[in-house]
C-alpha cells in the first residue's frame, strides 16, 4: 500500500533535515582557519605519502560476490517463509532442494579457498 510508506517518507525526511541542521549549526559556530598543513589527510603525523585512494585487495571482492549470491537467495526465501504455513509439504522440499543447490556453490567457494584470508 503506497500510503503505508508516507509516514516512513516523513520520518526519513525529518531525520535527514535534523542531521543537516545540526551539521549546519556546527558549520556556523565553528571557526574557519584553514591552513595547508591542516587540510592534509591525517597520516600519523607524517606528510601523506602517495595517493589516498588505493586499489582494493581481491579478498574483499570475493566476499562481496559471495554476499550477492546469498542476498539473492534470501530475496527468494523471504516470501516463501511468509506463506510456508499455507503451502503443502511440496514447498518445503522445493526450498530444501533450492538451498542444497546453493550450498554446492558455497562448498565450491569454500574448497577453492575463497573463505580463507591470506
Amino acid at each position, binding site marked *: *500500500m503506497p500510503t*503505508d*510508506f*508516507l*509516514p*516512513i517518507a*516523513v*520520518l*526519513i525526511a*525529518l*531525520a*535527514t533535515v*535534523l*542531521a*543537516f541542521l*545540526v*551539521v549546519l*549549526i*556546527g*558549520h556556523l*559556530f*565553528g*571557526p*574557519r*582557519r*584553514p591552513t595547508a598543513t*591542516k*587540510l*592534509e*589527510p*591525517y*597520516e*600519523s603525523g607524517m606528510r*601523506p605519502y602517495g595517493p*589516498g*585512494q*588505493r586499489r582494493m585487495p581481491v*579478498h*574483499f571482492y570475493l*566476499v*562481496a560476490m559471495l*554476499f550477492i549470491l*546469498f542476498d539473492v537467495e*534470501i530475496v527468494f*526465501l*523471504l516470501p516463501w*517463509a*511468509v506463506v*510456508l*504455513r499455507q503451502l503443502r509439504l511440496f514447498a*518445503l522440499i522445493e*526450498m*530444501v532442494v533450492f*538451498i542444497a543447490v546453493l*550450498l554446492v556453490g558455497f562448498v565450491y567457494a*569454500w574448497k577453492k579457498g575463497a*573463505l*580463507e*584470508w*591470506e
Partner: protein
Amino acid sequence: MDFNFQDPFTSIGELLRGLLLGWGLAPGLVSLILMLLGALVLAGFAMTLAGVFLTWLDRKLAARIQDRLGPNRVGPFGIFQPIADAIKLITKEDIIPEGAERAIFKLAPMLAVMSAVGIWAVVPFAPRLIGTDLNVGVLYIVAVGAIGTLSIMMGGMASNNKYAMLGAFRTVAQMVAYEIPMVIALLVPTMLAGTMGVGGIVEAQRGGWFIVLAPVATLLFFVSAMAEAGRAPFDLLEAESEIVAGYNVEYSGMKFGMFYVAEFLHGVTIAALTATLFLGGWLGPGAQQFPLLGLVYFAIKTAFVYLVISLIRFSMPRIRIDHLLAFNWKLLTPLALAAVIVTAIADKLAPALGWNRAVVHLTANILLAWATFEALRAYARGIRQRVEVQPAAVETGGAD
C-alpha cells in the same frame, strides 16, 4: 471528547485531529501534520536518547568495568557531560581534507543518521503505537540498515585517507558479510509468525516468545546484528589501535558527532529489534488494556538487551579479521541456513504429529545446537592434532 487514560496516545492524536479540523484545515493536510508531529517526537526522542542519555550510561559502565570513575564533573554524576560534548563539537572547526570527494564526504554522516532513525518507523512501541505497520517490515529493516553500511563506506572512501580507506575495506568484510546470517536468522520469526509485518510478529508471540521457540536464531541474529552495528568485539572498521579511527578519521566537529550518534542509535536499534522480534516486544501482563504499560515493557526489554551488548563490548578483545570471516562464513551462515530448514521442518512436523508446537521447536533447536557444538569440537580436535604433528604448519602469521 472524553480523555481515555487507558490509551493516551490515540486520545492525544484524536484530540489534535479534532482541534486542527476545527480550524478548518483539509483532512489530508491534518493527517500529514499529525504524521510530521509524530515523526518529530520519534526522531527527537531517538536522537536525544542515543546522544545524551545512552552515551553517558555507556561511558559510565565502561569506566566501572575498567576500574575508573568516568564522567563525574558536569552535573550530578556527570550526567550533563554529553551536552557539554555536543557544545564542544558544535564549536569545533569543520575540516574537509584536501582531495576528498566533498559532496559524498558531507552526505555520509547525514545518511548514517537517516538509516539509524529510519528503522524506528516500523518498531512497535506499544499496542497501536507504531509509525507504520508495513507488511514488509522485516525487509524494510534490512534495507534501511544497509544504507548505514553504505554511509560508512562513503565516508571511508571519500576521505582521501589511507586509514579511512582501510576502514571502508573492512566494512565490506564485516558489515556486508554479516548481513547474510542476520537476514537468514530474520527468516525464522517471519516463518513462525507467517508475516513480515513487525506488528504481526509481536502479536504472534502471544503464545510464547520466539526466544523460546527459536533460541538458535535469536543468538544468530543478536551476534550478527552486533557485528552489523560495528560494536566491539566486532569493531574492526574503526579499530583505534590499528587504523586510528577507520572510516571517520577525517571527520571533525558535528559531522563526527552525527556518525557517533548514528553508531549509538544503531546499537539501541539492535537492542530494540531483538526485543521486538524475539522477546515479545510490548507483550506482557496487562499491556493490551494499558498501552503505556506496553511501552514500559518494551523499554525494559530494550534496555536489558542493550546492557548485554554493552557488557559484551567492554569485556571482549577485538576479533582478528581472518577469524571474523571464518566465524561468519564457516559457522554463522551454514548454521543460520540449518536453523531455517530445521524450523520449517519442525513447523510442518508439529501439526502432523499433533504435538505441542513449542516443545517440538525447542527440541529441534536443542538438537541443532548440540550438533553444532559437536562439529566445533571435532574441528578444534583436528586443529590440535595438526599442532602436535607439525607446529609450523598452523597460523602463518597476522592477516590484513
